[in-house]
């Protein structure tokens, strides 16, 4: 009860201060009047009575003050008062406040947005129940430098070890397919898994069920479990979707369940798997051989849950024995290098990919952290400058009786207020940034969300900086001797400009971080540029392509072929068309294969890796790929004629020992009886990976008796017009054939570069941001230096020093700082480049761009920083030059 009363009283005094004051006045007034009346009653005349009463009463104001003091100020009232005061102060110094809020907001916002991207792509690890029991099992690849995966038959052997593993599952790497939804065709990612998939991971479907055992047999009708994210975004989270049929690659598939919420795929790198299908259904999609082949380019991942009490070492020992047995039983098929068991928690994505991925992630993290560092140091500089200029103000307050504690509390409140506003601005900016990033179109869905942890961290850092840097000058200012500071001689006690004061150190830090940031941005620009100018090896101008999917129309193969042949004939008649060809898939699409060259031993050690590109008659001519020897495909090559192939120059040289390998033969490792003869050699082409795979061979779809899907044509006129004409012809010919892709080659190339361009653009933006921040910091410091040395400048000018010399003396100190900072930043940039170069050493199967130290870029950065420094110094320097000596002398 008492507590309630106290609280009421405190709140009342907080909000109704004016009423309290008038109440008090009225109360004392009443007392005075009653006293006057009493004295009147005892005989005094009114005026004398009042005078007497007043005198006895004493001063009203001291009593009022005593009453106010007796109430005491609760901490709530103190806080309110400090906040009001800080707000007024900040509004008065609006230039400083705006700058500080912008800096904080930009730093926190940019940092959070970029880090959320990284987080989505790289760090969002699924939180699975009991992750310590989960292991990944790989077959070591035959190629010592190759990637380890697994094959389905080997999985079946591993699954037999039920004494070691409580459950095992195999899943395919997510691969692309097309599905039909509400009439339109959409790309999708599919994983083919076994039935125990969810139980190994420890998850449950969010709706419906997983596959049942009879759905896992070959030949059973195909069912699917829809991914949760896709269900929400594309199917409207409609529970009635279960039981519906959707066509995937033309095959009708029944939806039986919805995947677990938050589970976007087995490989957790931010891409979203849309459908899970039973592994046995690969047969329905024409990939039955993937289920039978032992060599591990079948690309399956095997995970298992260990039984209680079984350790990873025990499992590994058992798998070693299994590995040896398989190598002995299947000498020609099994890679023969053993089986590896790895605890799932020890890897991010894949044991061999983790290295470069972590290097990239670290780089981007560092870059993003740099921005935040620059922002914080910038804020620190501004606060230090401001704090130093308030030394006199603080001294006055100390002199008239404020306690140190009160002053520190006020400064703290101000810093916190500033940081809160800046933090709020940062949140808004981060949210916007993520929204914008989401609109960047990529081939796969990436799960991008604002990460609360990062935001909290960034805000915490900024707030801490704000507090520390606002507090430091207050604490030191409250320590000074009052008198000299009040007299304005504080400036005389200032240290010489060259010494390493905190302010100077901050400037050097900011400049060097800015330069480093620009250096990193230039590395990524280098990579993006290299990708852009990479020679493709085939024609881009005037080429257009149209891809359709006849699987969804229900056409028979023969009918589909007729339609395509007619389309080809009609396309050739479009005015301006020089050449046209049919093929399967989009030009440049590759499939990894293993080959055995004729003349080498047929065992697994002599098989070599290459990539297959699907082609057809006229393909090589249409794309203007230079034919070096022999011939390309033509009408002669059909399903019943001997198998032929066109190979790339490098493949000819390396695998066949001669540039002219026409007439030599090779076979696919998986087809022991069927030899393919080389009929032509062409130049290598760029295949879309960052570094092109040099061993390429082309097969004609006509020989596989397959249906073409794409028509490619080249015109001497505009490619966009050609594309429109092709689309018209297709519509006139067969309006029911759905089009999956319609692009000019130039568009396709540009689309492939979207991701890296987005990254480069973001980094350039960040670099510019860093520059901006550094320049603001420089400006603040120089402006302050000029103001502080006004008197000195005035004296010099009055004594006749030329203005230029005076300006130069002001700028000299700062120029030194900028110079040191730039040099430091450049050195760090070079180090970073070299470190990345080492980290991106050629990884098996994938080559990443290895950055080189570019002296031109470094010079450009140094020049930019110099210009920025000059620009920042310009205004204060001008002010110094135009100072009237008399005014400067009187300045204090």
């Amino acid at each position, binding site marked *: *009860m*008492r*507590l309630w*009363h*106290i609280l009421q*009283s405190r709140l009342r005094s907080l909000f109704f201060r004016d009423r309290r004051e008038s*109440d008090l006045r*009225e*109360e*004392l007034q*009443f*007392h005075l*009047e*009653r*006293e006057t*009346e009493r004295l009147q009653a005892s005989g005094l005349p009114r005026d004398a009575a009042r005078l007497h009463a007043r005198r*006895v*009463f*004493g001063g009203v104001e*001291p*009593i009022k003050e*005593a*009453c106010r*003091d*007796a*109430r*005491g100020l609760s901490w709530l009232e103190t806080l309110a008062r400090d906040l009001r005061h800080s707000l007024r102060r900040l509004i008065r110094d609006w230039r400083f406040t705006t700058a500080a809020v912008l800096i904080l907001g930009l730093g926190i916002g940019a940092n959070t947005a970029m880090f959320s991207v990284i987080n989505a792509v790289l760090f969002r690890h699924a939180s699975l129940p009991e992750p310590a029991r989960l292991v990944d099992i790989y077959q070591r690849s035959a190629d010592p430098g190759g990637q380890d995966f697994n094959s389905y038959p080997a999985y079946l052997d591993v699954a037999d070890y039920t004494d070691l593993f409580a459950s095992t599952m195999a899943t395919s790497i997510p691969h692309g397919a097309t599905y039909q939804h509400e009439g339109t065709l959409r790309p999708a990612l599919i994983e083919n898994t076994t039935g125990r998939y969810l139980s190994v991971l420890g998850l449950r479907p969010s709706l419906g069920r997983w596959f049942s055992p009879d759905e896992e047999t070959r030949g059973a009708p195909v069912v699917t479990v829809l991914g949760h994210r896709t269900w929400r975004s594309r199917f409207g989270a409609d529970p009635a979707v279960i039981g519906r049929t959707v066509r995937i690659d033309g095959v009708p598939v029944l939806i039986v369940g919805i995947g677990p919420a938050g589970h976007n795929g087995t490989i957790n790198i931010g891409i979203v798997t849309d459908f899970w299908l039973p592994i046995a259904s690969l047969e329905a999609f024409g990939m039955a051989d993937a289920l039978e082949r032992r060599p591990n380019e079948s690309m399956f991942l095997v995970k298992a849950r260990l039984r209680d009490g079984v350790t990873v070492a025990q499992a590994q020992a058992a798998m070693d024995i299994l590995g040896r047995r398989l190598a002995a039983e299947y000498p020609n098929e099994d890679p023969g290098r053993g089986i590896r068991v790895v605890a799932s928690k020890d890897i991010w994505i894949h044991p061999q990919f983790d290295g470069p991925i972590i290097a990239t992630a670290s780089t981007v993290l560092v870059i993003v952290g740099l921005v935040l560092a620059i922002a914080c140091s910038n804020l620190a500089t501004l606060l230090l400058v401001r704090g130093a200029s308030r030394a006199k103000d603080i001294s006055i307050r100390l002199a008239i009786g404020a306690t140190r504690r009160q002053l520190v509390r006020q400064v703290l409140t101000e810093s916190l207020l500033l940081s809160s506003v800046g933090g709020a601005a940062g949140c808004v900016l981060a949210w916007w940034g993520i929204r914008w990033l989401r609109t960047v179109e990529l081939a796969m869905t990436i799960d991008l969300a604002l990460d609360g942890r990062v935001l909290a961290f960034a805000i915490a850092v900024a707030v801490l900086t704000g507090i520390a840097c606002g507090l430091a000058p207050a604490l030191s200012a409250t320590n000074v001797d009052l008198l000299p500071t009040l007299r304005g001689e504080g400036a005389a006690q200032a240290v010489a400009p060259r010494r390493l004061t905190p302010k100077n150190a901050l400037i050097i830090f900011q400049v060097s971080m800015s330069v480093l940031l620009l250096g990193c941005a230039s590395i990524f620009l280098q990579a993006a540029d290299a990708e852009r100018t990479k020679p493709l090896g085939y024609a881009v101008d005037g080429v257009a392509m149209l891809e359709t999917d006849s699987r969804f129309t229900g056409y028979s193969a023969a009918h589909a072929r007729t339609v395509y042949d007619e389309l080809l004939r009609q396309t050739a008649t479009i005015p301006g068309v020089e050449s046209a060809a049919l093929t399967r898939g989009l030009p440049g699409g590759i499939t990894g294969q293993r080959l055995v060259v004729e003349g080498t031993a047929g065992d697994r050690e002599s098989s070599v890796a290459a990539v297959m590109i699907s082609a057809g008659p006229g393909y090589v001519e249409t794309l203007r790929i230079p034919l070096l020897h022999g011939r390309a495909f033509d009408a002669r090559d059909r399903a019943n004629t001997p198998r032929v192939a066109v190979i790339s120059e490098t493949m000819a040289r390396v695998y066949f020992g001669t540039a002219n390998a026409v007439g030599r033969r090779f076979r696919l490792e998986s087809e022991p009886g069927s030899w393919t003869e080389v009929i032509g050699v062409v130049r290598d082409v760029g295949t879309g990976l960052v570094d092109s795979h040099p061993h390429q061979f082309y097969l004609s779809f006509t020989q596989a008796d397959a249906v073409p899907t794409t028509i490619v044509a080249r015109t001497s006129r505009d490619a966009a017009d050609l594309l429109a004409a092709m689309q018209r012809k297709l519509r006139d010919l067969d309006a029911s054939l759905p089009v999956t892709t319609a692009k000019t080659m130039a568009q396709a190339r540009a689309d492939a570069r979207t991701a890296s361009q987005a990254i480069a653009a973001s980094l350039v933006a960040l670099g510019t941001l860093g520059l901006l921040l550094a320049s603001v910091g420089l400006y603040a410091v120089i402006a302050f230096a000029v103001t502080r040395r006004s008197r000195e400048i005035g004296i010099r000018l009055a004594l006749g020093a030329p203005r230029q010399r005076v300006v130069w003396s002001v700028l000299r100190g700062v120029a030194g700082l900028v110079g040191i900072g730039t040099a430091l930043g450049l050195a760090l940039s070079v180090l970073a480049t070299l470190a990345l170069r080492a980290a991106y050493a050629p990884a098996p199967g994938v080559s990443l761009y290895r950055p080189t130290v570019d002296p031109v870029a470094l010079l450009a950065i140094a020049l930019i920083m110099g210009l920025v420094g000059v620009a920042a110094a310009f205004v204060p320097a001008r002010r110094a030059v135009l100072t009237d000596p008399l005014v400067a002398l009187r300045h204090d």
Partner: protein
Amino acid sequence: MSDQTDVLQGTLDLLIMRTIALEPMHGWAIALRIQQVSNDLLRVQQGSLYPALHRLEHQGWITAAWGVSENNRRARYYALTKAGRKQLVIEVSKWDRLSAGVNLVVQRT
């Protein structure tokens, strides 16, 4: 000026609370009552009275409310709260102990 006995702060609180224990009063009436009941031995100064009243209110022992005084004017009336009553008993016993102790020492020496 007649001599004014300075009253200790703690005892002033006690006096105030005791005075208004029977009925709510305004500040002037409290001072008058104390003076009358103590046979003019104790005179409370306004400079101590009102701060004491406000402090007691702040601490929750007494409440204040506006009312109409004897001569039909607005005055601020103070009354004891329930907690105040309990505190009064404690204060009285404290005073008894203190005064008894002081008496003993003074009479001894």
